[in-house]
């Protein structure tokens, strides 16, 4: 079932300069089995309200996992748990376990800032820092990590912008404010900003929902290109998008995981009645 995950791990020589530093040099065999996240019996509450109900799911490494489901079913809540962003909302409570490469994400001594450096995030609405230039926006994460070497910064700047498919459009305007480019470009800038710190995982919460079809197509293409080097979890309302970009798809419904499987299988031969109803548009 994860055959397509393997094929992409064979070294492609399409862009030598962009060759990533292998953060976790996994062998092909490992790639098939390895999970980036192993989630066990996860439940999340906002105050009294339970948003996620006892979910267990394994998210494969170096693959694109899509999360679909009707509005309010807990998609955002779920992915925000994967980098501990939900902790910023007061009065949330988590039960269960999330292992990230075998380590407990919520272990007593673990630092949420460290987790977020390894698990980056792109939001529904693009949110470049308005007082920073394009260049500063991309490099801000590195500067936080204490990188000062100009040469390293320049290299990383170009690399991140290229990976985010934005370099050619902004290479002459790097000093311009991050808000001076179009909405779609801003979203790609945010992707570049997330990539610049070289995370292992990229979480994307409806990254295209505020964009027009052309900008959306660009970002989808970009996501597919990133697939070789990153584990990607993408939340989307758009089922075509899920089927176009993802390897595996999870269907959530009112806080529960109804079905999780190979994307083609889930869309063509759903196992669960509710999944079928949702993807055929019988409820939404």
């Amino acid at each position, binding site marked *: 079932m994860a055959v397509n995950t393997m094929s992409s791990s064979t070294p492609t020589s399409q862009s030598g300069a962009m060759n990533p530093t292998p953060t976790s040099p996994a062998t092909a065999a490992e790639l098939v089995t390895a999970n980036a996240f192993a989630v066990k019996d996860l439940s999340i509450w906002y105050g009294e309200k339970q948003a996620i109900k006892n979910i267990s799911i394994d998210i494969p490494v170096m693959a694109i996992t899509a999360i679909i489901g009707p509005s309010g079913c807990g998609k955002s809540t779920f992915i925000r748990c994967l980098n501990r962003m939900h902790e910023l909302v007061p009065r949330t409570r988590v039960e269960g376990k999330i292992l990230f490469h075998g380590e407990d994400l919520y272990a007593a001594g673990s630092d949420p800032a460290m987790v977020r450096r390894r698990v980056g995030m792109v939001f529904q*609405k693009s*949110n470049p*820092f308005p007082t920073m230039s394009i260049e500063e926006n991309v490099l801000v994460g590195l500067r936080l990590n204490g990188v000062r070497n100009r040469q390293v910064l320049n290299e990383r700047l170009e690399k991140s912008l290229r990976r985010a498919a934005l370099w050619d459009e902004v290479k002459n305007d790097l000093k311009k404010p991050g808000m001076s480019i179009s909405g779609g470009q801003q979203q790609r800038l945010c992707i570049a*900003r997330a990539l610049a710190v070289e995370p292992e995982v990229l979480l994307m919460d409806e990254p295209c929902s505020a964009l027009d079809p052309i900008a959306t197509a660009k970002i989808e293409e970009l996501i597919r290109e990133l697939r070789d080097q990153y584990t990607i979890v993408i939340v989307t309302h758009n089922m075509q998008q899920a089927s176009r970009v993802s390897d595996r798809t999870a269907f959530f419904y009112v806080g529960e995981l109804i079905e999780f499987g190979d994307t083609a299988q889930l869309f063509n031969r759903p196992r669960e009645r509710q999944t079928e109803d949702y993807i055929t548009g019988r409820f939404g």
Partner: protein
Amino acid sequence: MPAVEGRAHAKLEVPPPSRFADKAFEWLTLAMALAVVLLVILVGWQLARGSSAAIQKFGFHFLATSTWDPVAEQFGALPFIYGTVVSSLIALLIAVPLSIATAIYLTELAPLWIRQPLTSLIEMLAAIPSVILGLWGIFVMIPFLRDYPFPFLKKYLGWSGLFTGPIYGVSMLAGGIIIAIMILPIITSVSREILRSVPNLQREAAYALGATRWEVTRIAVLSYAKRGLFGAVILGLGRALGETMAVTMVIGNTPQIATSLFAPGYTLASVIANEFTEATTDLYLEALFEIGLVLFGITILANLIGQLLLRTLKTSSGTRGA
């Protein structure tokens, strides 16, 4: 048929009411804005008229000389200008870091349950009447300053020249401190509103990069809010310059220019409040009016400079596209 045509015409003309309302609204707001400007000009003009004889007699010397001798009818405003400017600067130096730090604590760091009570408490500070604060200054703050912080400053920072000479308690520094206490609530609550208006998405962007709380505050919150915070400071400065009652009670009311902040001073606002009732001669009264004019001018100047600085802040931060 002309009648029908007329009716058709009338029908076409129906939409305008909203346009009229729009125009009326525009004119009304413009009139309001002009009224405010007019009021400012009127105040300045009144002050100038009330002091025309003094202006004619002393000319520029009024601003540049230090003698204030009602008996000899010699009037120079320099010590008061100095006192107002220095006490306000001291106040800003103390109040700005404290207020902004408090605002940051209240919006970014404090546990939720503590935020509202603390905010109310700070706003209550603003409700204390100036005279009461002055009394507190005389009976509590001054003795304390005289016994502990002042000798300490003298011992360790005396070399700077700012903390030398006899310690009376009443002093420029005490005046600055009391003004700081008075402008603290306003700067804090305005700053707090400004920090609260920073979109959460900005904070999340920084958190998602692995920033710590302080880093989030720095790169996402403060840089986003810096223009607004600067505005809050200017607002505080405006208040500081005009502060009268409490300062009068602790600054010592001695028209002199001394390097040491332990020496007593005098402010423009204080001298007007203190001497207005005693101004027996016309020239004396006119001189006090001119003091008022100077204070008015300084306040406007401070605001203008603030606006200019704000403008440079805007272009350098570049929130607008090219």
